[in-house]
C-alpha cells in the first residue's frame, strides 16, 4: 500500500517565487500550450511561462483539477484557456488546436508534457497497460505535434515544440513501456526537426531524470527511496529545472537548436540507478 505521507515537489508559493534566470518580459505577447498542466512538472512549466508573460492554453483530463490550476495561473495576470481532453484522441486534439487558434490566432510554444507511466517489472506489464502508455506518451505526443504543425504551416507562422521525455540513455528498469515510448518521441523529434525546418518549426525534447513532483505519490516507498541517490549529485531535481530548460529551448535563445534533447537529470545516465518498483535482490551488490 502506498502511503501519501507528504507533499512532493514545490508548493504553489515556491513555484511563484522560485528564481528564474530569464527576463521577466521575455514571453510577453506569446502563447504557450502546456498539456498535463494541472499537476507535477506540467504545473511548474505552465507557471514559469506565465511568470515570463505568456498567455496559456492548458489541457488535461480532469476538469476540476484543470480549473483550479487555471485559476492559479491567472494569478500571474495572464489569459488562460482550458480544454478538458485526452491527447490519445486525435479528434480531441484537433478541437484543442482549433480552440487555440480561435482564441489567440497563434501558438508560439507547444509543450508536450502530458504523459505517464507506472512502475512494473517488464515481464508483468499487462497488454492494456502497455497499450495505454504507448498511446499516451508516443501517439498522444504525435497527434499534438502534427496538429500544431499543420496550423503553423497553414498560417505561415513559426513554431516551437518541446516534448517532455525521460532520461532513457541507459534504459529505465521497471519502466520498459515508458522508455520505449520516450525513445520513440526523441527520434520522432529528430526526424521532424529536418522535415519541418522549411516551415520554421523547431522540435526538441527535455529529458528529466528524477524530478521531485506530485508524481512521486505514485511510487512505493521501496521505489521512491531509490530516487534520492539516483545520480552523482545524490539529490532530486526541481520542476523548475525542467521549466527553465523548456524556456531556454522555446524562446529565442534556442533559435538555432532543433532535433536536440536536453537531459536534466543530475548526470544520472553516467552513474547511479533507479528501481521504481524496488531493487531486486539480484542487483544488490555489497560495497
Amino acid at each position, binding site marked *: 500500500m502506498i502511503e501519501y505521507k507528504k507533499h512532493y515537489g514545490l508548493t504553489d508559493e515556491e513555484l511563484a517565487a522560485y528564481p528564474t*534566470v530569464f527576463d521577466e518580459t*521575455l514571453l510577453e505577447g506569446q502563447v504557450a500550450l502546456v498539456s498535463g498542466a494541472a499537476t507535477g512538472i506540467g504545473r511548474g512549466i505552465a507557471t514559469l511561462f506565465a511568470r515570463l508573460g505568456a498567455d496559456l492554453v492548458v489541457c488535461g483530463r480532469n476538469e476540476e483539477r484543470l480549473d483550479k490550476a487555471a485559476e492559479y495561473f491567472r494569478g500571474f495576470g495572464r489569459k488562460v484557456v482550458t480544454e478538458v481532453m485526452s491527447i490519445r484522441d486525435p479528434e480531441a486534439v484537433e478541437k484543442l488546436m482549433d480552440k487555440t487558434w480561435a482564441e489567440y490566432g497563434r501558438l508560439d510554444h507547444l509543450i508536450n508534457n502530458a504523459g505517464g507511466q507506472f512502475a512494473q517489472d517488464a515481464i508483468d506489464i499487462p497488454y492494456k497497460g502497455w497499450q495505454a502508455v504507448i498511446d499516451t506518451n508516443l501517439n498522444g505526443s504525435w497527434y499534438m505535434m502534427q496538429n500544431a504543425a499543420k496550423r503553423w504551416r497553414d498560417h505561415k507562422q513559426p513554431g516551437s515544440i518541446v516534448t517532455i521525455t525521460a532520461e532513457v540513455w541507459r534504459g529505465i528498469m521497471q519502466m520498459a513501456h515508458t522508455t520505449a515510448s520516450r525513445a520513440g518521441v526523441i527520434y520522432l523529434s529528430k526526424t521532424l526537426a529536418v522535415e519541418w525546418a522549411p516551415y520554421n518549426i523547431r522540435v526538441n525534447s527535455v529529458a528529466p531524470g528524477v524530478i521531485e513532483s506530485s508524481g512521486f505519490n505514485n511510487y512505493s516507498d521501496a521505489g521512491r527511496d531509490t530516487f534520492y541517490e539516483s545520480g552523482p549529485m545524490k539529490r532530486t531535481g526541481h520542476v523548475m*529545472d525542467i521549466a527553465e530548460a523548456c524556456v*531556454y529551448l522555446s*524562446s529565442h535563445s534556442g533559435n*538555432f*537548436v532543433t*532535433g*536536440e534533447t536536453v537531459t536534466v537529470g543530475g548526470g544520472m545516465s553516467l552513474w547511479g540507478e533507479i528501481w521504481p518498483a524496488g531493487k531486486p535482490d539480484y542487483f544488490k551488490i555489497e560495497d
Partner: protein
Amino acid sequence: MAGEELDMSKPWNKDHYGFTDAELVSYPLVFKSDLLKGEVALVSGAGQGIGKGIAAAYARCGADLVICGRTQEKLDAAQSFLEQFGGRVMTHALNIRDPDQVEGLMDRTWAEFGRCDHLINNAGGQFPIPSMDIPDKGWRAVIDNNLNGTWYMMQRAARRWRDHGQPGSIVNIIIVLSRGQPQVAHTCASRAGVVYLSKSLAVEWAPHNIRVNCVAPGAVESSGFATYPEEGRKSFYTCAPMQRVGNVFDIAEACIYYSSHSGNFVTGETIDISGGSALWGEMWPAGKPDYFKNA
C-alpha cells in the same frame, strides 16, 4: 585564400563575419540583466570570434570577467570593449597548452577575485585539411590545444574549487561531432575526447559540486569564417536543415543556460547548437570532393 579575388556578391563572402561590436552590445538576450551580478566568468580565447561573444553575454548579465588568449593586444582591445558593460575585466595572455601558464592564470584569478564561478573553455582551433595530408605537427598541435589545453584548465580550476570549498561550473566549447566531421579529423578526435572527459568528470567531481557540460556549435558565423577557403565556407551556409548560420549569442546563451542556476541539475551533457546539422546536411570545410557530389 591568399591571392584569390573573392566575388563579394556571393552571400558566403563578407567583409566582416559574425556580429560587430555594436551587435554584441544590442542583440537581445533572454536572461535577466543582473543574473550573474557578483559572479566571475573565465573565458579562454576571448579576444575574438565566439569567445568574445560569450564574454560579452556574460558581461551583459553582470559578471566580472577573466579573459585569456595568446595575444595581449587582442585581449587589450577586447578588454576596453567589454569594460563598457560595467564589470571588472582582467586579461591574462597565455598558451593553454602549457600547464604552468594555466597554473599562473588560475592563481591570478583567485588572487584578484577570490573565486571563479564559470569556466568557459572556448580556446581551441583547427585547420581544414583532408586527413591524408595532416602533418604530425599539425595533428599534435590540435590535440594539444583542444584536448590537453582544455584538460589543464579543467583540472587546475577544479583543484581550486575543491580547496576553497567553492562550487564550480565548466562549459567546454566543442563542435558538432556525432556523425564525425570530414576534413577536420584532428579537431573531431580532440573534441570527442573532451565530451567523454566531461562525462567522466561530471561523476568524479559531483561530490565537489562541480558541473561539467559541453556546447557544440555547428556553423556559427564569427571572425573564424575568414580562415576557411571559399569552397569550404560556402558549405557552411546550407549545411543544416535550417539552411542558415547561427550567431555567437546562440552559443553564449547555451553557455549561460548551463552555467547559471538554470543548469543546476545538468551535468555531463552536450547540446548541439547547429540548426540540426547532425541530422541532415553536410559541411566540407576544405571544399567538397568530387566523389561526394551526387547527381
